[in-house]
C-alpha cells in the first residue's frame, strides 16, 4: 500500500494535505495540485529503502530484507514495535508510564539513524536489538520515517505551521494564499509536540508529550545569543525579582546568572552522586518560554476566549482538562473540567459558540462543558452511535473532533464532527441552543479516517467535509475525498463526492508495509491505561495484598 494522507488543513480556498513527510496543497475550487513541500528525510528513507532492496536482490527476497530493515521482521506486534522505535518520551506501556522520566532531548533525532543508533534507547531495546533476526550484517536500517503530525495556519492564512513528529520540529511557512509555501523557520522542540495552536498575537502555543506547554513567536525575532534555560525560569516568567528597579535586561542577565549557578550546582551534584553524569543542559537556540505543565502526557491544547480574555485549555492522558489564563498569566490555573474517566485525546470549541467546549477520548461519551465555569453541560454517547455500523464495538478512541457551521434559512446551525481510531465513519451532531448534541448522523467512509477538515459553505454551495482515510490494501479507494454535505431533517448526509488531482503524486509514492503505517499513524488507543503488569508494581510494593 501507499502511505495515506494523514493530516488535513483548510486555509481559504486551499487544502493542505500531509501524507507522511510530504505536504501537498490543492485548490478547493477544482482539486488541482498546487505545490508540494517535502521533508528532507523523505528522500533519505526512499534512498535507504532502495539500497536495501538492491542489496537484497542479489541474495534473498526483497520483501523479507525490507521487513528486517524496517523492523517488521521480528514477531513484535507493530504497535509495540513502533513505540520502541520512538524516543523514550513517548507512551511506553511496557514501562507503564508516560516516559516523562526518561528524556533524551539531547539525542538529535535529525538525520539518518542507522542500525546501532536507532536502538540506543535503553536496556529494554538492547535485548531486542540483539535478538533481531538479521540475514545480512550489511543491511542498513531505514531511517525514521518523517510524519507530519499537525498543520495549522494563522487566521489570515498568511502563515502555515507544520509539525513533524519524528524529529520534533516546528516548521513555519509563509503562504501566498494560493497554495505556495516559503519556508521561514525550522525549530526543534525539546520534546515531541502533541498539540499546537497559533494565538491571535502570533505566538505559537505548543504542548508536548512530556507535559509542558511552550510559547514561541511565530515569526522568529533575531535569536538571542543564549536564551534562558526553559527549565529554570518560572512559567510566565520575568517577575521582577526582589528589587523593583530591575528592568528586562537585568532580569535577563540575572536569570542567566541563575541558570549558570544552577548548572554549576548540577555538576557538583553530579560528581557528588558519582554515577550521574548527565548535565546536558543545552537550551534551544531560539526564543522559547515555558508557560505551564502537567505531570502527564498532554494530548490536546486549544485556545479559548471569554469576555475579552484569552485562556489556554490543555488535556492530558490522566483525564484532566485544565483551564489556564493566557500569557502573561499562564501560571494561573483557573479551573479543571472533571468528569472523564479515560484519557482525553481531542477538544474543540466551536467558533460560533465560544463558551462551549467539547471533549472526547477513551470514554464512550463526548463531554460538553461550559469551560469557563468548569461545568459539565451534557454527555453524548459516541460508542452507541458507532455501534450502529459496528455492533461488536466495546470501546472507542476519539481521534478527531471538529466543529463547523451550516448556514440555513433559519440561521446558522453548529455541527460537531468526530472520528474514532479505526472506525470507518464520520459521526456528527447538531449542537443545540440548550447545549446538547442532537440529530446524530453517521457518514460511512471507504477506509479508516485519519483526519477530517471542513470547507465552509459559500453562496449556493453547502459546506464540505474532506476526509483522509487509510484504505488499507484496497487499491481502488482514494485516500483523500471531498464530500459535500446535505441535510435531511437537520441530519447530515453526503451529497456529491469529489477528488483532488493527485494521480501523479500517487504514482510517485513508494509502497509501504501496512504494519509500518499502523505504527506511524495509529496511536490514540495506545493512550488507554493498561492494568499495570504484574511484577512491575510488586517490585515496588512487594506484593499487593
Amino acid at each position, binding site marked *: 500500500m501507499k502511505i495515506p494522507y494523514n493530516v488535513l488543513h483548510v486555509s481559504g480556498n486551499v487544502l493542505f494535505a500531509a501524507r507522511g513527510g510530504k505536504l501537498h496543497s490543492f485548490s478547493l475550487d477544482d482539486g488541482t495540485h498546487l505545490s508540494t513541500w517535502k521533508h528532507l528525510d523523505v528522500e533519505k528513507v526512499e534512498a535507504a529503502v532502495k539500497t536495501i532492496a538492491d542489496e537484497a536482490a542479489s541474495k534473498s527476497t526483497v520483501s523479507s530484507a525490507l521487513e528486517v530493515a524496517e523492523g517488521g521482521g521480528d514477531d513484535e506486534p507493530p504497535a509495540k514495535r513502533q513505540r520502541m522505535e520512538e524516543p523514550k518520551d513517548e507512551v511506553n506501556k511496557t514501562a507503564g508510564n508516560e516516559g516523562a522520566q526518561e528524556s533524551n*532531548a539531547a539525542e538529535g533525532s535529525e538525520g539518518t539513524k542507522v542500525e546501532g543508533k536507532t536502538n540506543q534507547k535503553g536496556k529494554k531495546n538492547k535485548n531486542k536489538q540483539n535478538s533481531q533476526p538479521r540475514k545480512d550484517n550489511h543491511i542498513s536500517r531505514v531511517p525514521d520515517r518523517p510524519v507530519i503530525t499537525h498543520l495549522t495556519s494563522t487566521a489570515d492564512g498568511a502563515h502555515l505551521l507544520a509539525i513533524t513528529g519524528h524529529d520534533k520540529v516546528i516548521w513555519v511557512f509563509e503562504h501566498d494564499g494560493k497554495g505556495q509555501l516559503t519556508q521561514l523557520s525550522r525549530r526543534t522542540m525539546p520534546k515531541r509536540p502533541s498539540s499546537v495552536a497559533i494565538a491571535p498575537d502570533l505566538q505559537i502555543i505548543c504542548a508536548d508529550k512530556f507535559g509542558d506547554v511552550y510559547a514561541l513567536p511565530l515569526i522568529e525575532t533575531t535569536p538571542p545569543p543564549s536564551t534562558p534555560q526553559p527549565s529554570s525560569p518560572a512559567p510566565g516568567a520575568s517577575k521582577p525579582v526582589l528589587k523593583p528597579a530591575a528592568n528586562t535586561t537585568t532580569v535577563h542577565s540575572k536569570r542567566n546568572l541563575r541558570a549558570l549557578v544552577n548548572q554549576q550546582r548540577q555538576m557538583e551534584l553530579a560528581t557528588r552522586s558519582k554515577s550521574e553524569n548527565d548535565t*546536558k543542559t543545552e537550551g534551544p537556540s531560539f526564543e522559547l518560554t515555558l508557560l505551564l*505543565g502537567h*505531570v502527564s502526557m498532554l494530548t490536546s491544547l486549544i485556545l479559548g476566549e471569554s469576555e475579552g480574555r484569552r485562556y489556554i485549555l490543555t488535556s492530558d492522558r490522566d483525564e484532566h482538562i485544565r483551564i489556564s489564563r493566557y500569557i502573561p498569566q499562564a501560571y494561573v490555573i483557573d479551573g*479543571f473540567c472533571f*468528569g472523564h474517566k479515560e484519557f482525553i485525546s481531542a477538544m474543540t470549541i466551536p467558533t460560533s459558540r465560544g463558551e462551549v467546549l467539547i471533549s472526547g477520548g477513551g470514554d464512550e461519551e463526548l463531554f460538553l462543558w461550559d469551560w469557563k465555569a468548569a461545568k459539565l453541560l451534557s454527555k453524548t454517547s459516541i460508542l452507541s452511535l458507532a455501534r450502529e455500523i459496528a455492533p461488536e464495538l466495546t470501546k472507542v478512541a476519539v481521534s478527531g473532533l471538529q466543529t463547523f457551521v451550516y448556514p440555513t434559512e433559519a440561521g446558522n446551525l453548529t455541527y460537531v464532527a468526530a472520528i474514532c481510531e479505526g472506525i470507518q465513519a464520520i459521526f456528527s451532531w447538531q449542537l443545540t441552543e440548550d447545549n446538547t448534541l442532537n440529530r446524530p448522523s453517521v457518514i460511512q467512509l471507504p477506509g479508516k479516517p485519519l483526519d477530517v477538515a471542513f470547507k465552509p459553505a459559500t453562496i449556493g454551495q453547502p459546506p464540505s467535509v474532506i476526509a483522509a482515510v487509510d484504505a488499507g490494501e484496497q487499491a481502488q479507494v482514494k485516500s483523500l475525498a471531498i464530500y459535500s454535505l446535505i441535510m435531511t431533517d437537520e441530519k447530515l448526509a453526503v451529497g456529491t463526492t469529489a477528488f483532488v488531482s493527485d494521480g501523479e503524486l500517487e504514482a510517485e509514492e513508494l509502497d509501504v508495509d501496512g504494519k509500518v503505517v499502523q505504527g506511524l499513524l495509529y496511536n490514540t488507543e495506545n493512550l488507554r491505561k493498561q492494568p499495570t503488569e504484574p511484577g512491575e508494581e510488586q517490585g*515496588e510494593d512487594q506484593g*499487593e495484598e
Partner: protein
Amino acid sequence: MAGPPAKRHNRDKQRETVTKDGITQMPKKKFFRQRAHANPFSDHLLEYPTSPDDMDWSEYYPDYVEEDSSEADSKPRRLRKDVEIVDIGCGFGGLLAALAPILPDTLILGLEIRTQVTQFVQERIRALRSQNSDNLYQNVGCIRANAMKFLPNFFKKGQLSKIFICFPDPHFKARKHKARIVSTTLNSEYAYGLRPGGIVYTITDVEALHEWMVQHLDAHQAFERVSKEDEEADPCVKVMMDETEEGKKVTRNNGQKFVALFRRLEDPAW
C-alpha cells in the same frame, strides 16, 4: 515479586494490628518496609476521585461526617469541614502525628505514594486514636496518592491553607528534574490548591535542593518568600524540623536542615 506464600503469610500476621485490652498497638515499621522510591510518572494502581466532589472522606475522618448527609444520594457523604492541611510525601507520618494535637480543629491529610508506607501511617493513626480518648487524632488521615499528578482531583481551588513538603526525594539527575516535587510548572498546581495567604513549607537537608526549591518558588509569581521573623514565629516550623522521621535522622547525624516558607499571593486581576 510476592515472595514465597509462607513468608508472605507470616508478614501479614505480623502486620495485623495487635489489640491489647481493646487498645490498638502501634504498628512496627519493620513490617512495612518497601523500596525507597516510587516512580511518580507511572500509572501505578492508583485510586483517585474523578473530582473533589467525588471524594469520599468519611472513612478517613469518621468523626467529622456531616450528621444529615445520607448515603442514599449518589454523592459521597460530606464532612463538616474540608481538609485544609496537606503533607506531600508524608512518609511514616511523624509530622501528621505531631500536628494533629496542635491544630485539633483542622483536618490534616498525608499523601504518600508508597502503598506499604501509607498502610503503616493508617495503622499508626488508628492506634493513636485508640490510645487517646478525648477525640484526639480524629483530624488526621493518610491516603495513597501521587501528589504530583492528582492534587486537583482531591482539593478544590483554594481549599488548602498549608502544604508541607518535608525532605522530598532529591532526584539529582538533571533529566529527572521534572520528577522533583517542586518545579516551575507544578508550583501552579500548589497555587491552585492553596488559598491566598496559605503557606508552602519546605525543608530539606540537601542544600542544592533547598536552593532549587527556593529558586523555583521565588520565581513563581503566585508565591512570595515568608520573612525569617515570620518563619521563626510559626510553630509548624519547629514541628517540621523535629518531628518528621527524616528530620530526626538528620538530627542524629548532626546534619543541617534548610527551611523555606512561601506565601500564596492573591491572583492578579484578569
